[in-house]
């Protein structure tokens, strides 16, 4: 079967039961790769901040929603939530900016550790923190992940922003 390739950026979520390589590029953001080995289903998200429900409607930037969307997408692709393992990447301190912005990577790392523990999803590998950006390739079928750390991200490598994930629609029947 031909392996497809999908690139996700901030706010992106993708999961598939078909052999797919999901790629992303991370700085202070986090990408979580979830894999159900029994069913050969895998997926990845890419979030910027742990949580929040502030103004604007790009909910996918927040880890708590990004994780919920990823688990939902995995289940939709035929995966079982109970069989999932996680690989976690990112949370680098790439910005040399003093002030509160430097706390974001650490908050992201703390959030995802707590989240996965609370949800009882085992972390089978992690490459977090540090000062370098990361290219991540994740194979949905067998769960392999490849990480390349880069000191500098070339302009043409930067990812185009994903369309915002809006807060959901509400339908009342009757």
């Amino acid at each position, binding site marked *: 079967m031909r392996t497809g390739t999908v690139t996700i950026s901030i706010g992106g979520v993708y999961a598939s039961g078909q052999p797919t390589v999901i790629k992303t590029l991370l700085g202070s953001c986090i990408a979580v790769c979830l894999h159900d080995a029994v069913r050969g289903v895998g997926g990845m998200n890419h979030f910027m901040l742990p949580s929040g*429900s502030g103004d604007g409607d790009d*909910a*996918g930037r*927040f880890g*708590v*929603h990004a*994780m*919920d*969307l990823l*688990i*939902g*997408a995995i*289940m*939709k692709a035929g995966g*079982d*939530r*109970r069989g999932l393992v996680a690989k976690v990447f990112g949370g680098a301190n790439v910005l040399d900016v003093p002030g509160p912005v430097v706390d974001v990577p650490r908050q992201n790392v703390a959030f995802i550790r707590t*989240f996965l523990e*609370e*949800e009882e999803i085992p972390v089978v590998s992690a490459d977090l923190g540090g000062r370098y950006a990361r290219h991540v390739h994740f194979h949905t079928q067998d769960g392999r992940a490849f990480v390349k750390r880069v000191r500098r991200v070339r302009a043409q490598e930067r990812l185009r922003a994903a369309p915002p*994930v809006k*807060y*959901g*629609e*509400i*339908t*009342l*029947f*009757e």
Partner: protein
Amino acid sequence: MPATILVVEDSKTVRALIRAALLADDYRVVEAPGAREALITLEATPVDLVITDVNMPDIDGLTFTRTLRARPGERSTPILVLTTENGEAMKQRGREAGATGWLVKPFHPDQLRDTVRRVLESRA
């Protein structure tokens, strides 16, 4: 007396988000990590409204909704489905199962509270 709301959701983190949103409006919140636990809870605790996820291990939210609707005591309890499922076909299945409303995740706390308020007021 504040209305009691049962939240059926397998993710502990999402349950906490829903609980926080509802507690801000002083509702009483009862939680269940799955449909089975929810059905047991309902035997002992009457509730004014149910919020349920769809994709859950064991029993999915639509089967849970149908099961509730078949119980004499729960024919008219409002059931709001809160899910990442955003397709029209799934929504239609929710309606047929007897759901009162369909809310697509991610949810904003204000939207959730507004919807709960509207539904409870329409039943009052």
